[in-house]
């Protein structure tokens, strides 16, 4: 026999549609907000996460990725002398100015790396190759920023902080969290754009020799090289994400919106499930008069809530997936990793079961004598 919960849920199709709409709306709101949160968080640290190195060395007190301060080049040699270090590549990350062809100016974030090495290089190219960046003044921008930077073709000559530069390729999906687009160039070219002296850098990207304990290596580098901080890639990524998402309030706003969505969902489920339970009080009375235990009644209402949650989740996930696809090329990336999908299911269940609490209490309070004429 199909469970009573299924029957109760499916019997009133109109109410089911209203409830599902509410749940779907709430879940989409939660999914989009959390997806934006994850998307933005990843955006803030995407260059760190794609660096492929083990450790990041920076000047002491650097709060997050985008505002590193100058390290003298000799730190590179000092780091390379530490036992367990395989390589230490220089990376420049610096805000500077881009002059558009129409005379307008944009702030950009130059990322200067060694094109012979992979550390710090762009990981997704739409046009051109990393080796193209070896040319004098060569730069790459993300295709999504072409309009903002006034670039309409490869080979276009532009001006960065008064220096001639030429666009040799496009990256794809490498967005900056700030309003300043990333502009990739060789380390040598970036010295002019930044500007930095030849014996300066911002970061050192360290690879450890195989089998070396990163915690131990970190400690060794800190002890051997003065005036620096050392982070594992995941530590620096998290530090940067935490700064942008929580210190600036950007993430808090998204999380508050997600909580609001969750609250809306709870309210919708609570209201409709309660109304459905009130309509069925006599049925619950009949069940109890027949000998149904409180547990059985509780399970019936809870199952109804779970059915609504799962059905709402499936629809919301489908719509969420479409939103992810639509946002893929926009400036507001929505990311829906499987962990978030699982979290959403848990939230849908918690939301529905939370909303069902009042209904469960009401159903449990029904006296079996309700069905008798006493």
């Amino acid at each position, binding site marked *: *026999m*199909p469970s*009573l919960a299924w*029957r*109760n849920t*499916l*019997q009133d199709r109109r109410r089911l549609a209203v409830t599902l709409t509410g749940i779907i709306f709430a879940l989409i709101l939660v999914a989009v907000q959390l997806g934006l949160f994850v998307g933005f968080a990843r955006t803030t640290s995407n260059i760190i996460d794609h660096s492929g190195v083990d450790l990041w060395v920076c000047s002491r007190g650097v709060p997050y990725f985008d505002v590193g301060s100058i390290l003298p080049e000799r730190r590179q040699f000092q780091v390379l002398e530490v036992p367990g270090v395989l390589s230490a590549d220089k990376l420049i990350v610096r805000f500077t100015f881009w002059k558009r062809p129409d005379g307008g100016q944009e702030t950009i974030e130059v990322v200067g790396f060694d094109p012979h090495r992979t550390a710090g290089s762009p990981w997704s190219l739409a046009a051109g190759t990393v080796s193209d960046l070896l040319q004098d003044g060569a730069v790459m921008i993300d295709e999504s920023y072409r309009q903002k930077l006034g670039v309409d073709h490869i080979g276009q000559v532009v001006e960065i902080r008064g220096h001639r530069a030429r666009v040799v390729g496009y990256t794809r999906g490498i967005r900056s969290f700030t309003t300043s687009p990333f502009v990739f160039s060789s380390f040598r070219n970036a010295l002019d754009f930044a500007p930095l002296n030849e014996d300066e850098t911002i970061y050192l990207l360290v690879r450890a020799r195989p089998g070396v304990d990163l915690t131990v290596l970190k400690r060794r580098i800190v002890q051997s090289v003065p005036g620096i901080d050392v982070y594992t890639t995941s530590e620096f990524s998290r530090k940067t994400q935490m700064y942008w998402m929580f210190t600036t309030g950007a993430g808090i706003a998204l999380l508050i919106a997600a909580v609001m969505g969750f609250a809306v969902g709870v309210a919708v489920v609570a209201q409709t499930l309660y109304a459905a339970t009130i309509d069925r009080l*006599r*049925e619950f009375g*009949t*069940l*109890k*008069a*027949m*000998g*149904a*235990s*409180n547990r*059985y009644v509780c399970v019936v209402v809870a199952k109804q809530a779970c059915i609504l949650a799962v059905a709402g989740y499936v629809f919301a996930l489908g719509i969420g997936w479409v939103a992810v696809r639509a946002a893929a090329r926009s400036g507001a990336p929505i990311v829906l990793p499987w962990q978030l999908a699982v979290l959403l299911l848990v939230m849908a269940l918690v939301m529905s079961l939370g909303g069902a609490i009042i209904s469960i209490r009401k159903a449990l309070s029904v006296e*079996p*004598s309700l*069905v*008798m*004429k*006493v």
Partner: protein
Amino acid sequence: MTGPRVLERIRVERLTKVYRSGTARVVSAISDVDVEVEAGELVLLMGPSGSGKSTLLSMLGCILRPTAGRVLLNGKEVTSLTERELARVRLYQVGHIFQDASLLPGLTAMQNVEMPLELQGIRGRVARRRATALLERFGLGDKLREYPRDLSGGEKQRVGIARALAGDPVILLADEPTAALDLASGRAIFAHLRQLAVEEHRSVVVVTHDHRMEEFATRVLRLEDGKLLPAVVAGGAA
């Protein structure tokens, strides 16, 4: 067919039910009632409205707790049981037939009859077979998949009887089962109830206003103002 398990199925001693209305007013629904119902009996509980019939029936069926006195079902005192234990007594020992059948509208006739079995943990083919057999027995073999809204009053009540019998209880309690039925349907229902009592040795107690059904009873109990009047032995048979 169910054989007699205990001769004296229901025993009620000095049963009293008092309702408190507000802070001062006390309404005595049942006062010092003593009743015994044996296996094979069809006992009618009759009396004017407000005489306490349904209240007494609810206490016999462990739906209401008495204010004072004792109820023994199958020789076991049930008055002091916990709510959970009372639910188990209702589930395994008592079959309830309600005034308007009180079928669950979202379930088919067969699913309604399966419900007590599901509550007992009996599911699947066994439950379906038993529900089908019961419905066929009451002439509803062609209505298995009908929903209550598609059944007549008499059919609903027969589904209600089949549901009450699903758990094979030895005690059947019916609260005005024919109140909304025409005479022919009502007589058919009572004929079934008498058969369940006399031929299957169940103990059946029925609350009714309808004096025309007295002929089916083995005994008629009359209540007035919550007190039992001297018993009348009915001699009729269906």
